[in-house]
């Protein structure tokens, strides 16, 4: 569980170039972490690559916070 969260956070830190401390589970990619719409598309691609899953566009649109991403990945792995 925490493994998924750590990996998600690591990707967010790398891709958005933000401080690790800012990447809380409640943090919104766009509102809190300075991402734009293209950044979020790339983030979703990075999650797909890291976890070997496919995130369809309609699901991707709903992934707006770090927690959204962790939840989706854990559910799709279950």
């Amino acid at each position: 569980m925490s493994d998924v969260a750590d990996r998600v956070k690591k990707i967010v830190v790398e891709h958005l170039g933000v401080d690790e401390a800012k990447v809380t589970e409640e943090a919104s990619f766009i509102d809190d972490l300075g991402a734009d719409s293209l950044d979020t598309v790339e983030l979703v691609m990075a999650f797909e690559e890291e976890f070997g899953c496919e995130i369809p566009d309609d699901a991707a649109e709903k992934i707006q916070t770090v927690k959204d991403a962790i939840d989706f990945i854990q559910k799709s792995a279950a």
Partner: protein
Amino acid sequence: MGLVTPLGSGVERTWQRLIAGQSGIVGIEHFDVSDLPAKIAGVVPQGPSSEGGFTADEWVSTKDQRKMDRFILYAIAAATQAVENSGVSPQSDEERERIGVMIGSGIGGLETIYHGSITLKEQGPRRITPFFIPAALINLASGHVSIKYGFKGPNHAPVTACSTGAHAIGDAARLIMFGDADVMVAGGAEAAVSRIGIAGFSAARALSTGYNDTPERGSRPWDEGRDGFVMGEGAGIVVLEEYEHAKQRGATIYAELIGYGMSGDAYHITAPAEDGNGGFRAMRNALRNAKISVDQIDYVNAHGTSTPLGDEIELGAVKRLFGDHAGKIAMSSTKSAIGHLLGAAGSVEAIFCIMAMRDGIVPPTLNLENPSPTCAGVDLVPIKAKEKKVRVALSNSFGFGGTNASLIFTAAS
């Protein structure tokens, strides 16, 4: 002024190495060249800028580097040097709206397109990054620089192959003359030293292939042993400013752009017109625009790419245009030291002209050991830089498609 070249990052670094007769041409090591006929290039040296090298992290955050091709990185680095060196720092939106950017490139994000194509073929469209298009687009160099500084004036990007850098400076100056802007950040950037770039120019039989074991000897304009150009990469950016505007804010004025001439060959897609008419008319038009005569020119920075055809055609055009005065000018090709920077060549070489005026030193044509017989009568500054008072300098750029541009600079009055 700002420079990123195979001789280093920074105007002073590049210039000092250039006039010391050093070469930035090396054997390519950062990608596989085993099956390529040309294995040498002018590569921007990596390293901290305190040591004259280029480090991407010093100019653009790692986050943003993924969103741009290398040619944009070079453009941002050179533009940052130029803007900071110029002291331009607009305080209001009104001022920012009067500052524009015109940075072009010959090819743009070639390597980005190459890698994107491989990803598409091997992994499918879902693996194409959303930054693929903005990373490759030529005008995104201008876009990034405008975003970085908030410059809201004209935002433009010329694409005229190897004349791009010269056209950018000439066209940007005309925007200022026409009243569209007070200040223009202008120049060219290129990063085509890649497998696809070398393969493409090799296929066109444009590159030197006979000096793979002695890279620094590969670019040898006007020399009997020349066998094609050596590709280079980097960027050259200048800040152009309306004269009274610059004077009013107490800016350091390095030079005045007094002439700009253009022409088209209407002849062949890659070869220059054999009679040199295109280059001749570009130079003549620049002289007319400057309202000066040939005998006022002290130095010509030649296009001089080290190809068997082009070098002598250009020299012939200079001899015809300059007549008796051809024996009194110095004319050199700095591509002998840095290679051919394609879309960045014209703006990098314009900066060399300005430095030649500043220091009273004309940079050398390296490797010019056995000049072709037709070279007699013109001082091509072989091997070593020489002291010469340069009051007026002319820079030539000629590109594929038969597109020619000449710029004339005079020392600041």
